[in-house]
Every structure is written in structure tokens, then in C-alpha cells.
């Protein structure tokens, strides 16, 4: 049995035990909170929407029954954040104003600053939190921030420091940090190094589809397409998520197997639209990406990009809008959007390459050449297969 299977099984037993012990309704908020956390934990492992729904229902029931308990509200905040419901995050925090002052609440607020494009505030908040307590998760947050702003070595140093805070009782978290270190390397075109980190993650915590999905990407980047496809299909059996279906479709398209690609694209799109149809917003950026790059349908891409931007105004959503506008042949507007995306100091090979394409299309050849050089400096292999993370 893999570590993943063991943890999933253990979590299932915990959930069953808690439910058995509490009858129809939880009799106290501690048990309700524990059950909600366990359900959320299971959902985090499986990433299945139905599991998240079960967790959310339990959280909401707990809040209805016991009032806005801090731990339950913190979990609700976390869940809303995961699904990009930033207005919900703010409402949740307002239910228990004291939460904004808690260490955990302040970490969420730093995330909120980042997601809403308040980068200096996000950095300051994270640095303050780390000064108070060098927790691995805040170190990893700052590492991600630093990575996006181009500080690769510093980001890796922070990730290493985060790993040093983790114990043998937190191997899944350790594996997650190893994956981030691998992502960092892949973004620089260092496939062997990246894959080594992914493999290490797989050794640290065995059997997680999330790790295998990263390994599949690294294999594809190295041109080991058959191995990558095999692994992706295996991952999909365990975690049939639309974004993975799109990735596999893109891989097929990348190697010219367009028929198979279309099958996966159709499944992915159906999944995205089903989610959006339910009123969920977390696939807006995937829909933007899908229409821009898969369908090359600029108008539709712009529609989803603007909806996403209205929820989260940050460099990623601005860049996605820029690329959608480019697909819609609105080159000047695309250039403006990309300028806004890059203005906080983001350094990303893919974005620089997109900026170059937009600038060339807008007639700014010099700027385009400059951004292309910058993309190549960061990752000389940026044209290889990669996942948009």
C-alpha cells in the first residue's frame, strides 16, 4: 500500500469513526470541526469535487449549528480560497473578525494580497509572519512569491528552509515542497534536476497522483512522450480532472496526434463548463487558457479572462487577458494588459515569450525582441512541452 493509499484509508476510517460517534448531528463543535477538517483533508487528497462538496456541507452545517467557530471559519476561508472565491474569503473572515489578527488568518490575508495584486503588502506580511514563526508553509509562500519575481536561487533557498522545518510526520508536505523545487527547475529548462526533485517527492510520499502528474510533465518536456502519456493516463484514472485532460490533449497535439488530442480536449471543456455552470469560478483561468491556446477563440477567451480578472486582479489574470486579447487580435489592448501584468516585476519565460509575440503583433519589434531574449535567458527551452502552472 502506498503512503497515499494509507493516508486516504486512515482518513476514511477517521471520518467513519467520527460519524459513528456523533449520530445524526454532531453534539459538540470540537467533533464537528474535527469531522469537517477530516473531510477537507480527504478532498485535498482526492481533489474530487464531490469530496469538497461534502466538506463544505459539513463546515456550513457546523457553522449553522454552533455559530461561527474560529476553526470552522478558518477552514471555510481555506476552502473558498482554494476555489478562488475571494469575496467568500472576505465574508468568511468577517464572520469572525478576530481571525484576521490570528497567525493563520494573517497568512490567508497575505495570500489575499498576492491574489489581488498587492505585492509589496503580500511580501511584507509574509516576512513579518516568518519573523514571528518560521513555519514551513509561510516560507513556501514567500519562496513562491520570490520565484515569480525572478529570484530563483533565493526561492530555492527558502524552499530548502521550509523543508528543514518539516518532520518525518509531514512527508506529504515535504513532497509538495519538493515538487515546487522541481517546478522551479523546469521553469528554467533544467529537466533532469526538476525530475530528480519530482522523483524525490515520489520517494518521500509514495503513490500520490499529484506527484505522478508532475513527473509526467517532466518526461514530456524531455521528449519521453510515450512514458509521459502512459503516466498521464494512469493519473487520470486516479484523478479525472479537466485540467489534466487538457494537458494530455495538449501533449497529444504537441506530438501531432490531433485526433486523440481532440477527445481529451472535449472532455476537459465539458468539465470546465460543468463547473462554471454550477456557479464555480475556479476554472475561469483554465477556460481562458483553453479558448486562447486550444481553440484559439479570442473572443471567448477574452470573455472568461475578464470574468477571472474581475475576481482576482493580479499579474496572472492580467497576462491571461493579454494573451486572450492577442488571440482576439486586439494587439494594443493586449500590449497594455501585458505591461500591467509585468509591471510588478514578474520574471517568467512564458510571459516574456507571450509579451514578445504581442509586441511584434503590435508593431513594437524592438520590445518584442527584447522580451524574447529575456524569455530565452530564463529558459532557453521554453518552447518545449510544459504545463501552465
Amino acid at each position, binding site marked *: 500500500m502506498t503512503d497515499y493509499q494509507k493516508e486516504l484509508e486512515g482518513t476514511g476510517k477517521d471520518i467513519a469513526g467520527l460519524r459513528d460517534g456523533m449520530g445524526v448531528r454532531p453534539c459538540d463543535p470540537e467533533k464537528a470541526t*474535527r469531522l469537517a477538517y477530516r473531510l477537507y483533508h480527504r478532498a485535498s487528497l482526492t481533489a474530487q469535487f464531490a469530496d469538497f462538496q461534502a466538506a463544505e456541507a459539513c463546515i456550513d452545517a457546523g457553522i449553522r449549528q454552533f455559530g461561527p467557530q*474560529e476553526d470552522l471559519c*478558518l477552514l471555510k476561508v481555506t476552502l473558498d480560497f482554494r476555489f478562488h472565491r475571494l469575496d467568500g474569503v472576505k465574508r468568511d473572515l468577517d464572520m469572525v473578525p478576530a481571525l484576521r489578527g490570528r497567525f*493563520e*488568518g494573517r497568512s490567508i490575508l497575505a495570500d489575499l494580497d498576492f491574489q489581488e495584486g498587492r505585492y509589496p503588502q503580500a511580501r511584507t506580511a509574509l516576512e513579518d509572519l516568518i519573523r514571528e514563526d518560521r513555519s514551513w508553509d509561510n516560507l513556501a509562500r514567500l519562496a513562491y512569491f520570490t520565484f515569480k519575481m525572478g529570484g530563483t536561487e533565493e526561492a530555492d533557498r527558502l524552499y530548502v528552509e521550509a523543508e528543514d*522545518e*518539516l518532520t*518525518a510526520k509531514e512527508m506529504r508536505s515535504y513532497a509538495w515542497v519538493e515538487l515546487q523545487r522541481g517546478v522551479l527547475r523546469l521553469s528554467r529548462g533544467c529537466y533532469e534536476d526538476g525530475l530528480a526533485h519530482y522523483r524525490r517527492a515520489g520517494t518521500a510520499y509514495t503513490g500520490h497522483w499529484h506527484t505522478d502528474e508532475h513527473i509526467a510533465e517532466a518526461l514530456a518536456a524531455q521528449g519521453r512522450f510515450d512514458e509521459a502519456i502512459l503516466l498521464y493516463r494512469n493519473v487520470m484514472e486516479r484523478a479525472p480532472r479537466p485540467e489534466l485532460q487538457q494537458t494530455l490533449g495538449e501533449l497529444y497535439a504537441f506530438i501531432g496526434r490531433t485526433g486523440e488530442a481532440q477527445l481529451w480536449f472535449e472532455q476537459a471543456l465539458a468539465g470546465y463548463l460543468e463547473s462554471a455552470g454550477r456557479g464555480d469560478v475556479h476554472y475561469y483561468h483554465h477556460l481562458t487558457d483553453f479558448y486562447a491556446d486550444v481553440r484559439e477563440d479570442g473572443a471567448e477567451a477574452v470573455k472568461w479572462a475578464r470574468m477571472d480578472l474581475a475576481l482576482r486582479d493580479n499579474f496572472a489574470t492580467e497576462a491571461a487577458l493579454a494573451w486572450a486579447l492577442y488571440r482576439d487580435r486586439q494587439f494594443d489592448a493586449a500590449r497594455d494588459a501585458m505591461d500591467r501584468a509585468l509591471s510588478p516585476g514578474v520574471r517568467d519565460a512564458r510571459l516574456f515569450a507571450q509579451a514578445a509575440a504581442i509586441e511584434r503583433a503590435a508593431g513594437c519589434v524592438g520590445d518584442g525582441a527584447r522580451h524574447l531574449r529575456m524569455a530565452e535567458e530564463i529558459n532557453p527551452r521554453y518552447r518545449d512541452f510544459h504545463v501552465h502552472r
Partner: protein
Amino acid sequence: MADHNDPNAVNSIFSDIDHSPADLYDLFGFPSKDTDGGEKVVIALTFASVPEAGVLDSDLLYRILIAAHPRVVWPEHDEFTLDALGRYFDAVKNKYLGELKTAEIRVTIDPAQKATVKFIDFPGGSFSTVVDIGKVLAIPTPDGHSIQAFIGGRDDAFFNDLTGFFRSINYAPQFYHVPHTMTEARELPIPKTLLELDGNDLFNYDPNNPLLGSGVKQNLPPGPWTWKGDKFKKDADGNYRFVYSGVDAQAGKNVNAIILEIPLSFITRSPAANRVVNTWGESWVRKAAHKVESIPDHPVWLEHPWALLESIRFDDELKQYKLVDTDGQPFADAALSERENNRQLGANNFWLGPHFIKRLAHLGWGFGPSISALGLRTSFDHNNSPVSVLKTYASVVEAFPRVKKTLFQGLRLPDDSWNPKGLDIPLRRPFEIFIPNVCAIDMDTTGTWPYGRRLEDQVATRFLALFLDMEAEFNGKKYHIDLLNDQSLWDQAPIVPKTPPNPLTNDVEFLDHFPYLAEPHPQ
């Protein structure tokens, strides 16, 4: 442990935090009565029985640190001042960080439940051996000694009324559902007390809910969680209500333990001079990065019952682990360090000296008036306050005069049995007991607390005795650290229930032979 209430990250006080094998409970240490072949010292480190009693976690590393030195006498008999205390803390710090040579016993467990026991930096050298768990073993040393060892599950040797202690400090998570994030809702801002406060509805015993705090919890009412009263609660007969019940909260519970009986001449080359064996325990958990690497044991350890280890760089091993918990003195964490994670410093708690004084004063304002109300004399200067007071101090200078006597008074024992040789051994004083946070085993005594810690010592009650005035008399006899165990005192006191605060004995009898702690309870 005396720090069962420690909200350290691994501590099991919160219901949704799993019990952790890194949660150290108690450190016991006393001279063995078996002196065949020379004096021996017994040291027992107990910790949470996770995954279960008799099965140890292979990601953990336990250390028992040991340093022997001559008995030190407070050099400034006539100068009980804050400056003198500061000089004492500095001297202790220099001693522990500098001149004192500390040896250690390090225990790790492999997945097959074999324990690797390393003896490091003892006068006879360093060596290691691999032993079975759950067995009493004699470990031969390179210099010809024999060490008795037991690693495995036992009965929890700690016996106390944990609920009573929590009631005395208004510790909400024992009684109420307190979200983890609400750190301000742990010790609520209500005076600490030994007698129930009139109108303290949050913590006073409720006959309609008698199990509240003893397994039953309620929803935490909305704040403010304060107390507006001005007197102790009394019943119709004029009796106070004791916050303690005397019931053993640890009855029927198990621990895992590392128990050793070590020849003194193995610990020190000068056993005649170095009469005090200082010891403390630490738990370390393997870092994630090193678990991946699965560093194999040095092959020589597997091939021989013991092997010399001078060539092994132990710091490299320790770097693979993270310090989680420490244990030296009972109540050093629970009552004085306020159980904060960043104060888990073990022996190296020198910088906590000022905090120790302020915290003791804070407790004194709670316990001192309670003691006075019972007609007893307290060591704490509470200005004849008729009731417990909630007071915290920002300044050591302000706190010190209140707590001076509590800090400096010698803790008298009930009789002379602790000093069987009749030597001129001074009474120990609280400031030197808790800083450094070590169990200082005086080999010329029985090792009863505070000259070590014997299994049968009721340390929870002895801790409360710090606040008694040791110069006062009860029934024609000077106060002593077991006075609150005296049933006749409670029979005479205007209080119910008429019981010593904590149980007088463990729920099961200790063994009269190694490993001394009783067999574990059936699970």
C-alpha cells in the same frame, strides 16, 4: 509530566491534535538502593505511548543528558536580592554552556522495533548497542560496568488531579471547546486560585454537570471571560470549595519509557566528589529530508553488541532531527514557562530567569490569598488580600519583592529520611530548582524531590507547597513540602471536599526492583 497541559505543538491537550510520541511526560531520577558494586543512579524518561505502549516510533530520537558535579551551595547566604539572583543565573549559564561536560544516552528505534542505544562522551568513552524493546537488559560497558536498561511500555507513574490543576489556573480547553486559533482563550483572565471564587461560573464545580473538565466539555460562552467577584465562594456551612478533588487523572494510563540504572562511576571518574547528577530529557523527531535519505545505521553497530564510537560525528546525526520537547523539572513548563513552544529549552532555560520571577508572582497572587484564607501562612506577599487577585507583571523589579521569600526559602522536608547519611546538605530553594531546568539527583539523599525525583513523590502537591511559608508551624511542627498531603490539615480546614489536592499514591504499586515503574495496563 507534569507538563501534560503543555500546548506545545505536539502536545495532546487538544482533542484534534493526535497524541505524539515526542510528548515527554516525566523525568524521574534517584539513587538506586542497590549499591552492589558501587552506587547507581536510576533515570526514567516517560513519554506518550504512541503508537502504543510497548511499541515505539522509529522517527523519534530520545536523549537523556547527564552531567555530574559537586554539590553547590548558594554562595551569598545573606544577600537574597535581585542582583544576586541575576548573578546566579549568569553563573549557571556559564557553567552549563561552558565548563560542564555533558554526557548523553541517545535512543533510536528501527522499524523492526530494535533500539539502538548510544552512550556518548562518558568518562569511559562512547559506545553503542542494539537491544530488544520490552526487556530488562544488562548492557556491558567498555570499561567493565553494567548498565540496566528497559525500553518499552509501562504504567504512567505520574499521579495527580489534572482537572483540579486546570481549574486552579482557569485553563479553558479542559472545560470548553476552544478553537486552536483562540490562543487568548486558554488561561482565561480570572485569578488563579486554590479555592473557588464566588461567581466564577466558568470554572466552579457544577453539581449538575459533575464531569465537566473530566472528559466532558461545553461550548465556550462568549466573552468577556472575566471575574467580577470579590470573595471566595462559601457554602451554607461556611466552607470554601476546593478546586482540587484528589482524584487521579492518570489512573489506568500507560506510557512508553526509557529506564536506566547506571553506575555512578560510569558517569563520573570522581564519584566521591561529584555527588549531584544533573539530568534532563529531550525528544527529537526526524526531519523529513532525512527520512527520504533513509541513512542506514553504521554497520558496525549491527555486527557487535557494542562498538566504540569515537569516530562517529554525532552532531551530524542530531542535525537530521528537530528538537520537539524537553523535560527536567516537573512543572517547569506547565506552571512556570506557560508551555510556549519557543520556551521548550530544556536545561538551557537561563534566559527565562526573569520570566520565572514574573510568572511565580502571577501565580502567587492567585495561590497566596487562597492559602491565607485557609488559615495557613504563605511565602508570597499579597498585602493581606482577602481573595485571589489577577495580576501580571511587566517588570521583574516590581514582581521580585512579592515573590522574594517564595524564591529563596529553603524547602523543608517532613522528616530527615531524605538525608539518610545525616550530611550537611542545605535545603533546596525554588530558584535553584527550576533554573536550570534539570533534575538534580543528590546521591547522598534518597533522591526525593527536590533532590531528584522519586516515583512516589507527589510533585504536583509539592509544587503548591512553594507558596507555603516554611517558617510557619502547623500543629507544633514547621511547614514542609508534604504539608498539603496531611489529611489532618484538611480535616481541620473550612473546606470541602476534605482531601489533599492530589492523590497520595499511584493507582498501581511501583516495583521494588528495576525497572521500578509498574507493568503497563492491558489495552
